[in-house]
């Protein structure tokens, strides 16, 4: 009896990785999907704060959904703890448009996949990468770089672009028929969509990408600010906090986070421990958390910002409650002026580097803005 060929692959549940798994199934290969959880998945964030487009339809894990559609087992692997120090904060190949260390990220995941391949006797690893599809990680040179640095040289198959890439060991040894693989390149998804129809892949998320926070410019701003002021002593809770709320920097040491809606307020409730809290009883209002040692002036400002985002924003003054450690009280403040507010909103900061970053002044936003020659940030 001939040995059944077994492959494992990175399965995000997007069109490309789903198709790649399906193409191998067509060649009678046993497929296992690996889905790595970095802690920066957009759908996970929605789920954490209890968001849903439709109460009967919670955000689904696309990898598990694809696994069900293809009848392919999927393993979810939590790499959050290693990912932060080894990949996000220390990327050898730098960041993309935001804070996305895509090349290092791919290398890291594929190194993990290689370990599983060797431990469990799989024949090779596959990914859904398409040559030329993404500017940072899916050009030929970065793809070669990922292959060699993952330790998978010869054992990494990209079924969608295989015909444009050197022949791999699975093809040489006849485990996979190269003639039945594809030579797709570029950013258009047209060929993949036609292929999906042909192979009966009907359910996949639209559009390509968008499943990771790190390329998002808004998230990247907050992360850069965080790293600039706090350095690399980062916890997961810190990262989670960057995913919600409006963020304002009051001073080098103090920042406030203002919930944008009820689900964000509920989410922020979980992080009250060790942070100051500001809220209003008289009107519907956000919950505001204060990070850092707030001075009396910072506290007043945090109250004023909270009043600005409450239903009492049109009033001359609003009674705002606060609690810091075992102390609590109430301040009557005027809602902060929008112009002053924008001075504090966290905008694009200096690019974070792993090297120590200089402390910058309280009015860093204004400084950066004038350096960039840009207009004031729009209200959000």
């Amino acid at each position, binding site marked *: 009896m001939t040995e059944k060929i077994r492959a494992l692959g990175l399965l995000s549940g997007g069109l490309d990785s789903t198709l790649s798994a399906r193409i191998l199934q067509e060649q009678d290969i046993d497929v296992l*999907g690996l889905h790595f959880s970095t802690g920066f998945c957009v*759908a996970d964030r929605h*789920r*954490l704060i*209890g968001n*849903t487009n439709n109460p009967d*339809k*919670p*955000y*689904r*894990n696309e990898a*598990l*959904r694809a*696994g*069900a559609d*293809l*009848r*392919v*087992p*999927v393993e979810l692997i939590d790499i959050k703890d290693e990912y932060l120090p080894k990949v996000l904060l220390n990327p050898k190949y730098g960041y993309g448009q935001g804070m996305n260390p895509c090349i290092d990220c791919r290398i890291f995941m594929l190194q993990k996949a290689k370990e599983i391949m060797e431990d469990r006797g799989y024949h090779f690893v596959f990914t859904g990468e398409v040559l030329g599809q993404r500017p940072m990680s899916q050009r030929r040179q970065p793809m070669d770089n990922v292959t060699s640095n993952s330790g998978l040289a010869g054992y990494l198959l990209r079924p969608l672009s295989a015909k444009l890439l050197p022949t791999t060991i699975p093809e040489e040894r006849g485990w996979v028929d190269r003639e039945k693989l594809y030579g797709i390149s570029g950013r258009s998804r047209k060929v993949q969509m036609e292929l999906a129809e042909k192979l009966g892949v009907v359910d996949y998320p639209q559009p390509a990408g968008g499943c990771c926070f790190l390329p998002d410019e808004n998230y990247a701003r907050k992360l850069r600010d965080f790293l600039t002021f706090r350095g690399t002593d980062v916890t997961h809770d810190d990262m989670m906090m960057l995913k919600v709320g409006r963020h304002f920097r009051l001073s080098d040491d103090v920042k406030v986070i203002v919930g944008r809606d009820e689900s964000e307020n509920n989410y922020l409730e979980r992080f009250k421990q060790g942070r100051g809290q500001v809220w209003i009883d008289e009107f519907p209002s956000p919950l505001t958390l204060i990070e850092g040692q707030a001075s009396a002036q910072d506290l007043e400002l945090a109250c004023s910002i909270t009043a600005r985002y409450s239903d009492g924003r049109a009033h001359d003054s609003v009674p705002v409650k606060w609690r810091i450690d075992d102390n609590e009280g109430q301040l009557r403040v005027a809602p902060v002026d929008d112009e002053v507010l924008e001075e504090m909103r966290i905008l694009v900061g200096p690019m974070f580097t792993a090297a120590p970053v200089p402390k910058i002044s309280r009015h860093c936003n204004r400084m950066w803005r004038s350096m960039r020659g840009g207009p004031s940030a729009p209200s959000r």
Partner: protein
Amino acid sequence: MRSMKAGEILLLLADDAGVAVDIPAWCISTSNEFLGLLKEPRMYRVYVRKL
């Protein structure tokens, strides 16, 4: 799951509404049986039979 014997039932407690879609999908992909889900005020109870 790996340490369970076929026929045994797993009770999973979760606070994430996503289990309502993810666990049935996972059961299909791994050939286990999704027995059902009970929604409680702050928690979901999910039952899966190992096949």
